[in-house]
Structures are given as structure tokens and as C-alpha cells.
């Protein structure tokens, strides 16, 4: 009797496996992604749509925690168990591509009406290896109420602050317990109650300041490290000095990937820089009357564009995965869940270059920043078209080592004021040069 029960139980346990293996005549492929439960649900919705609209392929989601995403994919690759397609972190796209794990997708948009922007095309030695699923740029957010309270005019949407103007405005928006501003007699930097500015110092975002100051981190072909140029070094020091010297920004030694959370999200900072995805991920949950503006400029008016990629991995279902990814990364497939919520900026030129395309998303009443379409057009559309440069991981190999590991740890000593940017950069420069050359 007991034996019978055991056998029945074992069979019951195997039922789900049998159900999965049951031949529904469709090719099952997996799509891996990171994100929380909300994202899981929205991804599942899109997958359901794809699974219903055709009967040849069935896409299953594979959720991997964000923190361990890339290392998990590498482990799967070692075990020859990679999903058929999936999100790939920006800093690892070239790593996967150069190691022959990703399928060639360079012809994905050939002959298509909607062409992805060049800015978000990953290139290995000049050859396209993949396209970001969307576009994101760095912009400045500000709290309108704090500006009103200080009697300060809002930042312009088409004429960015120069760095000096930015610091001056930030000083006027910073005050201590006694209401004194930095530079005034009796100002006590120990007792600041409101800061004027916060520049997100998450490592990869710092590249924009090197470009803004007329320098660069890496050469355009991704083969040379230029971060030791005086312009690049000065740009890092200038950002650090906002907190250390000017006392207009909170000290942020251990950068977090959330300028909004550290900055105006806490309502103690009036202006902050961060990526456009915050329009969808953070601001809808914050009770703030906010505005958007281009980044302040040191010498050049420039911003960075970047976004992760949905990659097709080599394998026996490569073609099915290719077709799915092509469908999945169209703006239309994620229109409600990602574009209209403000999390994605569109990736196709059509949505930036034609009035019709622009009004489809920016003019939609569901879009989070639809109250002021003129500003939206200048800061999100024109700024992308005219001033955005690709972040270094679009063309420089091994940014998972250079920006994520070496620079991240080293720059913390600069943010804390223990060492100067020049000192730190000169020390790590040989390591950086060596790292970008690793195969």
C-alpha cells in the first residue's frame, strides 16, 4: 500500500514535467530578463501577446535578479544552457559579442521603415553587433517648488546652464539652518538643510562630464584610454567639488544608481541629473512638482545616450529567437507598458524626426511628461537628436572591468575628498589601458 502511494506521489511530481514536455507542436524558447515583480508581470503580458498572435513559437520568461544577471548568464553559457534570447547589460554586450555567444543581428532592421538611431548601435571595431531596445539620455530634473521658494527662474529647456551658472544657481538654492547660502559670512556647511544640486556620480554617468569638458574617456575606436587628459580629470574634480568645495551638493561617496532617489526624490535637493527612465520608474511615485532641462555644460553641450540590449544567443532556436526579438523590441510591442509609462524613450528615428511620430508618444495623454510638450520636445527629442553621444560601452570593450570595477572603486576616494581626481586617475590609468585591450 505504502509503495503504491509512493509511486503515485512520484508520478504526481512528474506531472508538471510531462505537461511541459507535451508536444504542442510549437518551438519553446526562453527569454531572460532582470527586474522586479511588476516588471515580470508587464513582460509576461507582452510575451502572452506574442504567444497568442502566432502558433509556431512559445516564449517562456526567465527572471534573473538584476545584481547577478550577467554572471548568471555567463554561468549558463559555461554550462551550455543559455536562454535563446534575453536582455544584456550595456557593459557586457561587447563581452558577449566578442566571445561568440551572440548571434549576428546586424541585418535585423535592413529595409525596415523604422530604423534605430546610430547612437544606440553597439559596434565592435566598427561592425554593428546589436541595437539597444530603447533609448535613454541623461537630463536634469528640478523641483519647481524649491525654485519658486527661492525666487529663482526655472532652468531653460533649450539653453543649458554653463557650469559656472549652474554652481551659482545651486548656491542660491543651498542654505543652512540660519538661512545662509554658501559663500556668505556665517554659512555653516555642517548644518545645511537644503542643497541646490546633485550630480549623479554613478560611474558610467560621469563620462558625460568628460565629453562636456571637451575631453573623453576612450577614443572613438575604443582602443585608447584618454581618461588621463586634463579635461577628463578636471571634469571629475569639478563634480566632486560641488560637495567638497562649493557645499552645494550632498556628499555621496558610495554612488547609487539613483540620482533621483539621492537628489530631489528626498526633497532636500533642488536639481539633480539622471537618466530619462526615471520619468517612468520614479517620478510617478514621487509627490514632486518637477521640471526637466538639459544637463549643464562645461564646454560642450552634450549628453549620453544608452540602454540595454535584447540579444539573440546562438543556439538551435536562433531563428525563432531572432524573429521574436525583432518583434519584441519594436516600440509598438511595448507601447503601453514601457513607452507611454515613460520608462523607454523610442529608439527609432521616426519618433524623433517626424511631427507625427513625436506626437504619438510625447503628445499622448498617458505620457508622464505631457503637460509641457514644448519642453518635452526640446529636452527629450532635440537634445537626443542634436547633442547625444553614445556611452563608451557602445564601442569600447571590457567596460565591465574599466567603468564598473576599476573606476568605481577608485573614484570613491575622490568623492570622499581624500584624494584628488588627478592623483587617482594617474594611478589607475595603466590598469585601464591594459583592461580595454583584454580579448
Amino acid at each position: 500500500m505504502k509503495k503504491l502511494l509512493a509511486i503515485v506521489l512520484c508520478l504526481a511530481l512528474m506531472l508538471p514535467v510531462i505537461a511541459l514536455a507535451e508536444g504542442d507542436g510549437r518551438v519553446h524558447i526562453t527569454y531572460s530578463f532582470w527586474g522586479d515583480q511588476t516588471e515580470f508581470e508587464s513582460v509576461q503580458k507582452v510575451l502572452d501577446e506574442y504567444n497568442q498572435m502566432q502558433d509556431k513559437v512559445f516564449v517562456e520568461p526567465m527572471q534573473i535578479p538584476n545584481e547577478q544577471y550577467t554572471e548568471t548568464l555567463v554561468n549558463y553559457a559555461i554550462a551550455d544552457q543559455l536562454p535563446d534570447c534575453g536582455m544584456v547589460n550595456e557593459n557586457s554586450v561587447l563581452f558577449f559579442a566578442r566571445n561568440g555567444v551572440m548571434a549576428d543581428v546586424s541585418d535585423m532592421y535592413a529595409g525596415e521603415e523604422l530604423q534605430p538611431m546610430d547612437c544606440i548601435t553597439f559596434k565592435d571595431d566598427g561592425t554593428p553587433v546589436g541595437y539597444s531596445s530603447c533609448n535613454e539620455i541623461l537630463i536634469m530634473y528640478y523641483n519647481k517648488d524649491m525654485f519658486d521658494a527661492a525666487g529663482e527662474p526655472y532652468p531653460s529647456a533649450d539653453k543649458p546652464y554653463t557650469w559656472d551658472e549652474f554652481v551659482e544657481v545651486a548656491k542660491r538654492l543651498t542654505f543652512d539652518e540660519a538661512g545662509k547660502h554658501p559663500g556668505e559670512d556665517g554659512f555653516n556647511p555642517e548644518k545645511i538643510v537644503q542643497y541646490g544640486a546633485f550630480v549623479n556620480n554613478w560611474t558610467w554617468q560621469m563620462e558625460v562630464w568628460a565629453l562636456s569638458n571637451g575631453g573623453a574617456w576612450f577614443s572613438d575606436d575604443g582602443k585608447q584610454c584618454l581618461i588621463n587628459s586634463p579635461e577628463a580629470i578636471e571634469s571629475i574634480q569639478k563634480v566632486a567639488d560641488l560637495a567638497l568645495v562649493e557645499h552645494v551638493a550632498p556628499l555621496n561617496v558610495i554612488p547609487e544608481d539613483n540620482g533621483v532617489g539621492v537628489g530631489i526624490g528626498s526633497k532636500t535637493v533642488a536639481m539633480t541629473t539622471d537618466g530619462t527612465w526615471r520619468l517612468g520608474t520614479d517620478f510617478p511615485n514621487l509627490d514632486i512638482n518637477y521640471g526637466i532641462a538639459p544637463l549643464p555644460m562645461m564646454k560642450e553641450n552634450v549628453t549620453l545616450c544608452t540602454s540595454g540590449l535584447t540579444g539573440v544567443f546562438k543556439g538551435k532556436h536562433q531563428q525563432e529567437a531572432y524573429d521574436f526579438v525583432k518583434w519584441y523590441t519594436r516600440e509598438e510591442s511595448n507601447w503601453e507598458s514601457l513607452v507611454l509609462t515613460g520608462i523607454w524613450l523610442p529608439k527609432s528615428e521616426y519618433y524623433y524626426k517626424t511631427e507625427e511620430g513625436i506626437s504619438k508618444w510625447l503628445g499622448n495623454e498617458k505620457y508622464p511628461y505631457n503637460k509641457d510638450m514644448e519642453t518635452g520636445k526640446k529636452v527629450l527629442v532635440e537634445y537626443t537628436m542634436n547633442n547625444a553621444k553614445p556611452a563608451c560601452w557602445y564601442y569600447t570593450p571590457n567596460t565591465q572591468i574599466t567603468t564598473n570595477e576599476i573606476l568605481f572603486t577608485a573614484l570613491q576616494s575622490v568623492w570622499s575628498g581624500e584624494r584628488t581626481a588627478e592623483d587617482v586617475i594617474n594611478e589607475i590609468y595603466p590598469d585601464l589601458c591594459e583592461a580595454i585591450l583584454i580579448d
Partner: protein
Amino acid sequence: MTALPKRHMIRYNRGETRAAWICLLPSVIGLVCITYIPMIASFTLSLFNWNGLGEMKYIGLDNYIRLFTRDTKFYGSLLTTLEYACLSVIGSIIYSMIIAMLLNRKVPARGFFRAVFYLPYVLPVLAVYLGWKWLFDYNHGLFNYLIKLNGGTSVKFLDSSTMVTPSLALIAVWLSGNLIVIFLAGLQNVPRTYHEAAEIDGANAWHRFWKITIPCMTPIIFYNLLMSLVTNLQVITPALSLTQGGPGTGSYFMCYMLYTQAFKSHKYGYGSAIAVILFLIIAVFTGILFATSKGWIFYEGDEKE
């Protein structure tokens, strides 16, 4: 007459041996598969250059040579790890000994206090670190708020390369509830008769502590010291959850270095070399502890004078 019991004995032994083997097998398989094979694999891997996806290249001892001669962060990482281990081991042994002695007395609500001091150990560790992050925060943290309230200047608890290790060690001390419980169990085993005899001979509390409590507790102290040392040399969680290795190499613990090198930078060989070095360091320290233990540990049943 004699043959029968002997055979019986052997059979009995055989059965027992077999049972022992069967019972031991799962843990032996576990140890071999999860510990020893990966250890050997890790050592082998440390002689290669491998990014996980590409070809493995044999490079001999290059990873080790690089680690000791060219890595700008290795010595910083080593010193940080040793400093952290030293501070948190000594700190948590003294702290938990004191708390255990207090809890061993007839204080009111003793059970409640025992629970209170053990509680940090059972809390989810990530939540604990996030809580401490808020306490230590430079801009809005509670500690700095109190310091500023009393007219002091803000302290960079986690934001300076010199302060970050002691600050993190403080959290480790606070978390050492498990040591308290073990000490407490040990204290309850110190025979009352010794204390009573010493009291009659006129020894004061201080003398009794040094001459009776501490000697009787040495095996427990040794156990706690060893466990605490091994755990703290392998520290990684505070760096992962709070400080991400910095500032400088202030919290760039060896385990964290190993993790970032191997899994974030995809340098598996290099990470393995760090793992081997860390293993040797732990082995050396454990060896020193065992070698010196004979001199200072007192076992009640010991025949030695």
C-alpha cells in the same frame, strides 16, 4: 567455544561498519563534490587565464605574480581584511563575553534580555546592514545628527577609507549574538564549587574571574575565536550591501575582491588565485591558533599539571 563469539563479533562489526559508511556517505559525497573538488578546480583555474566564455589559456603562476607585484589594490585589500578580522574578532569576543557574564547573573527579566541580545543574529542580514547604513549616513544619519546636535562636526563613518573598516567591524560586533549564547552555555558549566571554595579563601570577584572563570572558559573562548576568525576573514556582505569596496580599499575585502574579479570582471583565473591566497591565509591563522592552543587552553579532564 572461542570461535563463535569471534565470528559473531566480526559480523557485528561488519554490519556496524556498513551502517557507518551508509550514514557517512551523503556527507562524504557532499564534502567531496561541494568542497574538495571545487577547491582543486579553483586551484587549477588559478593557473589559467579564463573569462568564462572564451578559451582557457595556461599561464602558470602569472596570476599570482601579478597579484603580488602589479595589482595596486591587493595589499590594500589584504590589510583591510586583516584589520577588519582583528577588530571584529577581538571586539566581538570581549563584547559577547561581557554580555554573557551580565546575562549569567540573576538580573530581572533575564530571558527577555537574552532574547534581545540574540535578536541581531537572527535578523535578515541585509536589513541589518541597511539599518546601519541609515545610522552611519553622512548627510542624514542618526549618529551624525546626534554629533551635530552636540556641536560636533560630522564624521565620515562609511565615507572615509580610515573610518570605514572600524565602522563595519562595529556592526560585526553588534551582530555577534551567537557568540553570546555559546559563552553563556560555557559560563553555566563553570562549577559553582570552585567559586564557593575561592570565596571562602577570600578571593574577590576580580580574582575569581581571572583565576576561575577565564581558565574554565578557555575551550569555549578557543572555539569562538576560531569560528569568529574564519568567518570574519571571509567577510563580504558589508562590502556588497553597504560600501561596494570603497573608499579607496577601505572595505575592499579579499572575498569582495575575489567576487568582483571573478564574477563582475569575468577574470575567473585571477579570482581563483585570490581564493587560493585567502585560503592559505585562513589556514595559517587557524594553524597558529591550534599551535598555541595547548599553552593556554585548560581542559577539566586533562591529566597535565
